[in-house]
C-alpha cells in the first residue's frame, strides 16, 4: 500500500515539481503514471525509494514513512522495492548473472540460494542464454530485462518502473510491459511512469495523469489523454 498525503516537492522558490499530491495505491494494483516531460512522474517515483524527499506532506510505502526516514534505513527500504530505470542502470563490469546476484548479495542472502534463484529469474525474463554476457554485449531490450530480473531478486511487493521503455523500440517495449503485467498478476504492485500513449491504452489499467506537478485525472481503467 502506498499513500501520498498532501505531498509537495519544491526545488527552488519558483519551481515546484509536485504540489498537493493525494494518492492511494492498493496492494496488487497496476498504475500507469502519465504526463509530459517535466510533469513530475519521475519525481513521484523517486520519492518512493528515498532518492528524493518531499518538502511537505507525507509519503508512506509499505509502512515506511519516507518523509522521515533515517539514512541508515534507506538501504533496507530499497531492498523491499524493485526499481527499473529508463537507462537500465546495470553495473557495467558485472555479467547479467552477477548484476542480478548483486541485488541478492546486498541482502546477505546465502550463496547457495543465489545460485539457485538467479537462473530462475533470468529464465523468467527469457535470458537464460545471456547469463554470462556483460551489459555491453546485450541489446537495450535485453539489458532492461536483466534490470527487471534484478528488481525481482528481492521478491518485492512493489515495482517502480520509471520510463522503462523509453530507450527501446516498440517490439522490445511491449516485451517489457508484458513481463510487468505477468509480475502484476502474481500479486506485485506496479507503478509505471511513461509517456507512451500506445502502451497505456493497451494495458487498460488505472491511469493517473500528472500535469505541472498536479494530479489532473485518476481513472480506474483509463486511457492516455492530456
Amino acid at each position, binding site marked *: 500500500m502506498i499513500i501520498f498525503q498532501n505531498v509537495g516537492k519544491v526545488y527552488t522558490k519558483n519551481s515546484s515539481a509536485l504540489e498537493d499530491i493525494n494518492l492511494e495505491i492498493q496492494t496488487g494494483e497496476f498504475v500507469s503514471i502519465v504526463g509530459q516531460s517535466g510533469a513530475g512522474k519521475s519525481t513521484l517515483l523517486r520519492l518512493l*525509494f528515498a532518492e528524493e524527499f518531499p518538502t511537505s506532506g507525507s509519503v508512506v510505502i509499505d509502512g515506511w514513512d519516507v518523509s522521515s526516514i533515517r539514512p541508515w534505513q534507506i*538501504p533496507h527500504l530499497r531492498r523491499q522495492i524493485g526499481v527499473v530505470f529508463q537507462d537500465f*542502470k546495470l*553495473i*557495467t563490469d558485472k555479467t547479467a548473472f552477477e548484476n542480478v546476484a548483486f541485488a541478492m*548479495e*546486498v*541482502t*546477505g542472502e546465502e550463496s547457495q540460494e543465489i545460485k539457485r534463484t538467479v537462473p530462475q529469474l533470468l529464465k523468467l525474463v527469457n535470458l537464460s542464454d545471456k547469463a554470462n554476457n556483460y551489459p555491453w554485449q546485450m541489446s537495450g531490450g535485453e539489458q532492461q530485462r536483466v534490470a527487471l530480473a534484478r528488481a525481482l531478486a*528481492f521478491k518485492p511487493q512493489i515495482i517502480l518502473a520509471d520510463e522503462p521503455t523509453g530507450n527501446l523500440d516498440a517490439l522490445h517495449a511491449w516485451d517489457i510491459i508484458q513481463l510487468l503485467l505477468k509480475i502484476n498478476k502474481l500479486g506485485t504492485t506496479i507503478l509505471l511512469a511513461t509517456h507512451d500513449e500506445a502502451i497505456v491504452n493497451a494495458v487498460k489499467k488505472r491511469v493517473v495523469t500528472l500535469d505541472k506537478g498536479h494530479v489532473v485525472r485518476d481513472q480506474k481503467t483509463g486511457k492516455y489523454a492530456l
Partner: protein
Amino acid sequence: MRIFPLGRAIYSGVVHFWRNIWISLAATGVMILTLAMMSVLLLVTILGQNIIKGIESKVDITVFMADDAQEAAVMAVKTDIEGFKNVEDVTYVSKDQALSAFREKHKDNPRISQALEEIGNNPLQSALVVRANNTDAYDSINESLKSPKYERLIARVTYDDNSEIITRLSTVMKTTRRVGLGITVALGIIAVLVTFNTIRLAIYGYHREIEIMTLVGASPWFVKGPFVIEGILAGGIASIVTLVFFYPLLYIMSPKVGAFFVDNQFSIYNWAVNNLLLVIFLICGTGILIGAISSVIAVQRYLKE
C-alpha cells in the same frame, strides 16, 4: 541481522582488481614509487643520524692535569667528571701513555725524538679525555671544571681552543636534524597525496556503479568493502615489490654509500638486515594503510547517504 559478509567483499574485490587490471596496475605502480621514496627517506634519515653520531663521537675535550697531581687525585677528578650531566665517558691518559703516543706519532721525525732525549724526563702531562653524549653539553662541562675545587689539579682544558668549532658544529647538527625531518615529512606527505589521488581517480571511474549499488539497496559498507580490499591488494603487492627490490639494491649500494664516510663503520645494509621486521612492518603497513584509507575516502564521496 546478518553480519557484514567479509568473504563476499574479498571475492568481489579480487575479481574487480583482476577485471580492471590496467587501472589496478597503475595504482600499484604509483604505490611502489611512493613506498620506494619513503624507504629512501627512511634510509637517509637513519644514515644521517649515524653520520651525525659519528662526527659527534670525534669531538671531545682534554683536561690536562697539573704536573704535580698525584694519580689518586686524578682518578678522583675522573670519578667526579663521570658524574657530570651528559658525560658519555672519561678516559685517563697517564704521562707514560701520553709520551709513548707522542713518540709513536712522531717516530719519523728524528729531531723531535732527539729533543725528547735531551730533555731527559717526561715533559708531557697526564690527561682526562672527556666525551659528552651531545655537543651542546661541553659548555656546561667546561664550566663545572672551572670550580675552585679543581684549580690546583687542572692545568688546562682544551675547550677554550675548540669552543668555537664545537659550538658551530652543534648548530650545524641541530639545523641538519631539523631540516632533515622537515624534508622527510614534506616528501612523505607529497607521496601520500599522489597515491591518494591516483586511487581517487581510479574509483572516479566507478562512481556510476557506486550509485547503482546504493540504488539497489547496498549499505555503505557493502559498497566500500570490495574497494577497500582492492586498495589493500594494491598496497600489499606494492609493498612486496618494494621489499623484493629493497634489499638487493641496498646490498649493492651500501659499500658505495659507506665510501663517503671512510672512517664511519656504519653499514646501512647491516642496519636494514638487523631491523628486518621493522622495515617489513613499516613498508607493508604504510602500503596497506594508504591503500585502504584512500579507498574509503574516495568511495565515501560517491555515497550520498
